[in-house]
């Protein structure tokens, strides 16, 4: 193997030595160094704040994406249930009533969050029934355990 030292290896060494100055130098010396290089030191406060704000925003998006990935199987299951539900509104309301009784009889809490099923749109009603069906199935599974 050709182990001839490259220019980059010595540059890496010089970088490490220069970075010791960065890590340890008093603020005034660092400021003077940067000023001598003609670097733009204007508005450091606003610029650094902007960097942090942007990072927090990206991190927030990262976290939301992670949560979305983790609940994706549940969402998929509910969507699958919703597609297999009856289409008639009266049928859905009857089904919701039966499911609510099943869930409560299984000793599981059920909150309609102050919503009246009869006031829900068709789409929201289908969604609510799908969620109740999933809850009832889970309650049934738990009871069997």
């Amino acid at each position: 193997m050709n182990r001839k030292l490259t220019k980059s290896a010595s540059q890496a060494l010089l970088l490490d030595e220069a970075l010791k100055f960065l890590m340890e130098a008093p603020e005034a010396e660092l400021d003077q160094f940067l000023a001598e290089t003609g670097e733009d030191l204007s508005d450091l406060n606003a610029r650094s704040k902007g960097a942090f704000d942007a990072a927090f925003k990206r991190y927030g998006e990262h976290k939301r994406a992670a949560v979305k990935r983790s609940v994706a199987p549940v969402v998929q299951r509910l969507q699958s249930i919703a597609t297999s539900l009856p289409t008639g509104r009266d049928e859905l309301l009857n089904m919701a009533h039966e499911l609510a009784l099943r869930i409560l009889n299984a000793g599981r809490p059920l909150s309609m969050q102050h919503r009246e099923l009869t006031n829900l749109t068709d789409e929201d009603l289908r969604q609510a029934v799908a969620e109740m069906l999933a809850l009832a199935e889970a309650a049934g599974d738990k009871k069997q355990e």
Partner: protein
Amino acid sequence: MQFEDVDEDEPAVPGDVLATSQEIEAQARCVYLDEEKRSRLLKSSIFILGMNTRLKRRCQPEDLLQEALVAVLSGRRTWKKNRVDFVGLLLGTMKSLASSHEASLKTKDSHVLVEGDFLTELEQGDAAGVVENFGDSGGSPEVAMLDDEHDAQIAGVFAIIRAKFDQDDLAGRIVEMMAERKGYMPIDIRKALGVSEREFWSAYRRVTRVLVDFREKGAIE
């Protein structure tokens, strides 16, 4: 700009104390509220970019700082609390990201490789640097000879830098100690030379200026 983060996080070893994501978030918020620390980090980013000329043409210091923050917050870089404080972690991450991206840009910019002139190298994320890879000689005479050649080359680099300063210049004496390559930190050098902080750092700044110029241009003007 999109950063290429090909550098791997240094693995934890027994005894390392890893920060939780909540601790990391809390520290990031603390630094966010500390204007002085925030500004120092941005200055550090400016400094690091100044040493990575290809990346500097494509990236603002705020971008590098942002990228380091995201790498740490998202867990791509772990915080071993026993080794470094949070600000030190961000500095190391900026250095690591800048180095790996600079190397990537260098590869893309190099259209022709001259046989025998280049060696594929791995830029490491910590302060050990590429030189440490050459420390493991393996023991064969051929490798030992090449290690001697490497040491001579490094000594040559420091000799050139030393020659930039007058014989009695404190800056020159600092370079002499660096050339010993015993891992001296600035405080070690200052104690050995027995000078005041003010005098020392003024000279160290001049040395750093020359190091940066040499690294960038390969020579001293």
